[in-house]
């Protein structure tokens, strides 16, 4: 018996056609994909580890500053000569301001990161 050629095989297989996926199936699938994208985006992008560590570090620094102001600063204010007190006061104010500024900056970064993540999630949903 003569064997069928590859072309003939293709021709015969071509009889078996498959209908396209229904619009309803596509709609449901896309919806599930969007939900999955949101689910996988949140843990990946909203990992709080780094910002939290930075915030904790800055918080600790600020606490140490305040501790320094409250203890060493107080002791020095009693022991230092009156002419040096102005420098002491300036240094304490500078340290306190630096600590508060760093902490406020870190808080702003965390706030905007969360805000932009939420924005991205809303956009991907649309």
């Amino acid at each position, binding site marked *: *018996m003569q*064997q*069928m050629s*590859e072309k*003939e*095989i*293709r021709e*015969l*297989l071509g*009889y*078996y*056609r*498959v*209908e*396209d*996926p229904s619009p309803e*199936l*596509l709609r*449901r*699938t*896309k919806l*599930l*994909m*969007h939900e*999955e*994208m949101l689910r*996988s*985006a949140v843990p*990946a992008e909203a990992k709080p580890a780094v910002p939290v560590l930075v915030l904790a570090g800055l918080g600790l620094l600020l606490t140490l500053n305040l501790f320094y102001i409250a203890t060493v600063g107080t002791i020095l204010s009693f022991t230092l000569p009156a002419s040096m007190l102005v420098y002491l006061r300036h240094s304490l104010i500078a340290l306190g301001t630096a600590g508060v500024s760093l902490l406020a900056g870190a808080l702003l970064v965390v706030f905007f990161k969360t805000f932009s993540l939420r924005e*991205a*999630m809303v*956009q*991907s949903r*649309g």
Partner: protein
Amino acid sequence: MQDGSTGTRLAEDFALVERLKQGKPGAIDEVVRTYQKPLYSFIVRMVENRETADDVFQETWIRVIRHIGSFRGDSRFTTWLFQIALNQCRNVMRKQSRRSFVDIEDVSQSLAVEPEVDADRILASGKVKKMLASLPVKMREVLILRYYHDKSEQEIAEIIGTPLGTVKSRIHRATSMLRDKMEAFQPGTQTV
């Protein structure tokens, strides 16, 4: 060597994957629109049941989104997509006992939407479907990828996860088996 259109397709796929990874709006619509037809027809021919195929189709796309971050682009996106779909089909087929009959209503429903379709064609389609279904799953996989999706032997090897030599011999064996069945079941004849 890649021709121009293949290169363009690869570049488009790369850009699409990047957009999916970044969760860009519209990326999901675009990727589904691009691959819905080949993917769905592959799954339907593999699992032989439309309802099961719908579930596998959904699950495949969900897995694409879940694992897109780990897609490094070592292979083509389509290869990766078909790998996921094939794994899902294999899981489903393992769970279910394989249906040994052809649901001729499935075939006639799918063909009824085409105005030029006649009864002979429906019958022929049913026969071809039955022939494919009668082949062992491993043979069916390579035949569907080779003849319906024009995948190269190398791509098939990547999709089904076997060495190239095995794929070549499997295609050869599957083609011989199909030829034997086809010579017995010509579409014009009434023997099923």
